[in-house]
């Protein structure tokens, strides 16, 4: 899938594309044969740096549309907007490949450094109408220092995706994923556990240094210390609630940990290890 996406995107913007999410995690943590088990529907492509995101986004979207990629119209904001459409009502750029409706690509960008203001939309004017590029508080962390791939586009580092989810869910909000009975925090923190389990303790006990670099770079003011201070709060909540942990484990078994015999108990101690070996040290930084 990486190859397909890279081939469809103009080479000139390859350096500005970072794939994040389960596809990126699976690409780096699973054996080639196992990546088929990552049944992702959405391939999240982050356009970075932000300063060139609009130009890069326009180049990518126009090229894909010209090549027969089709906008996903099933969503609430399925149709393109116009100059009068408020930014928050603009549809995201979600495009199906010409030959399949099994998956789609979604374009997003990183927030301005130091800014933490929830989900924000940046207008993207295409020949077919107006779209929006969403950015989230911690997308910059996820895309930080991404690994290059042989296909030209980059792949988010597993530890950075884990950190972005940890920071995003410091507060354990009970918000459901639209159209499901799955809590967003269970899915995302479950992915943290899956990434940690696949990486292994020998790897994640060394995450605290790159985490520190990323959080300081993305939040250069004193804000980084406040974020680091309770980085593990949401994960602790997840581990303390058996029902949520069970749901997190189920989402993992349908994703990164498919076809692996990883028990809820395995994931619980993986979470405890992650806290003890990395998160607690990050939280102690001043």
């Amino acid at each position, binding site marked *: 899938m990486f190859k397909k996406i890279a081939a469809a995107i103009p080479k000139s913007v390859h350096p500005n594309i970072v794939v994040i999410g389960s596809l990126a995690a699976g690409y780096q943590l699973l054996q080639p044969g196992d990546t088929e088990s990552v049944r992702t529907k959405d391939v999240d492509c982050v356009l970075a740096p932000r300063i060139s995101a609009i130009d890069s986004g326009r180049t990518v979207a126009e090229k894909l549309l010209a090549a027969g990629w089709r906008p996903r119209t099933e969503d609430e904001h399925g149709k393109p907007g116009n100059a009068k459409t408020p930014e928050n009502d603009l549809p995201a750029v979600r495009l199906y490949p010409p030959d399949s409706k099994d998956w789609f690509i979604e374009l997003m960008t990183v927030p301005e450094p130091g800014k933490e203001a929830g989900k924000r939309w940046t207008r993207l004017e295409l020949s077919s109408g107006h779209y929006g590029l969403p950015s989230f508080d911690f997308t910059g962390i996820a895309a930080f220092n991404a690994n290059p791939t042989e296909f030209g586009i980059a792949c988010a580092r597993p530890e950075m995706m884990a950190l972005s989810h940890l920071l995003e869910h410091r507060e354990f909000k009970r918000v459901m994923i639209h159209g499901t009975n799955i809590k967003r925090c269970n899915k995302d923190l479950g992915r943290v556990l899956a990434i940690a389990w696949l990486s*292994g303790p020998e790897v994640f006990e060394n995450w605290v240094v790159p985490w520190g670099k990323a959080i300081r770079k993305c939040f250069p003011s004193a804000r980084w210390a406040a974020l680091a201070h309770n980085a593990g709060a949401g994960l602790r909540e997840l581990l303390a609630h058996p029902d949520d942990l069970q749901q997190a484990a189920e989402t993992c078994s349908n994703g990164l940990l498919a076809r692996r015999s990883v028990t809820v108990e*395995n994931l619980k*101690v*993986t979470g405890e290890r992650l806290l003890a070996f990395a998160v607690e040290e990050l939280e102690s930084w001043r």
Partner: protein
Amino acid sequence: MLPRIAHEEKAETGYRPAARWKNLWVEIKTQLHGFRNFRSILFEMAYWLAQNPKNRGLLVLAESRITENRLNEEMQRAARVFHPDALSRLSVAISKEGRYHGLPKNLGNEFTSWLDALVRKGSGSPPAKTRDSFYLILEILMHQWLLHKGPMTTDWLMKAVGCSYPTVAGALGRLAHVLHRSSDRKVELRNFPKEEWARLLAASDRIRSTVRFADVSGKPRPLENHLRRLEKLKIPNLGIGGVVGARHYHPNLDLIGTPVLNFSLHCPDGVMDLEFIAKLDPALKLVRDPLAPAQVIVHAVRRANAFFQPRKEGLAWADPAECLLDLQEAKLETQAGEFLEALQKRVEKPSP
């Protein structure tokens, strides 16, 4: 969290329960069969709870012949006497064959593991019973003999073990057939006390309060990584024993790899503070079955002087007598024999 004694909140009577889990204070009574003693401890706990209104109490009767029915009858009688508030914060549970009856609800598995460890070590019992002191003395004699330290006085032994003259004298009397007494009344082992050592080995789990931990993560860490992490954590009073410790004293030990990590925990007050295990690796969980596979094993060293050797990387080396016991407990008989022989034959005396 694992067994730990808190040092606060004593009642006017001088009593304070033995251990604490959050605001739940726990007292363990092992082999308490009579109601006179039961009432006595119940009164102590009720007095204490009356003085500590924010806390709760749990009395656990381990290996007791008191039945649940008799216990309920007794608690109904107590309800007529005790203040309802104090009694509402006091629970009494029975621990029998690894199961608990009467535990407060919703305390979780972690609490049960913590309580298991507490019950296993029989918190509240004297740190070292007289019959066990004999083995503590035997271990010190072995330590001195294995390291060619020469003879020692009774007074020195009393201080090293932390026990009285009659206890040391009694032990030396039992060991007379393997002791050499010099003209200045000092003693040392003449040869390996085979029979006594075999008895120590047979009762080793109890005497050394052995606690075993197994990895439940599905991804056990290499044991060397456990060691490195412990060095980083700078855990005090912890000596490396087992195969790793034996290799320190005898580098040519004929064994490839390290099957298990053994640690000796110096706890002269009799309290094993095992909280370091959760810091070492939260995937290590207590296992009750002594035959079940374990990655980390901890033994209590209750004597006053641990005889640990400092290590420049951090932690310490457990003494060779502990290492020998670890090898024998692990059924590494060949290596244990080789270790014993190598230390016996060593001509040079290592620095203390």
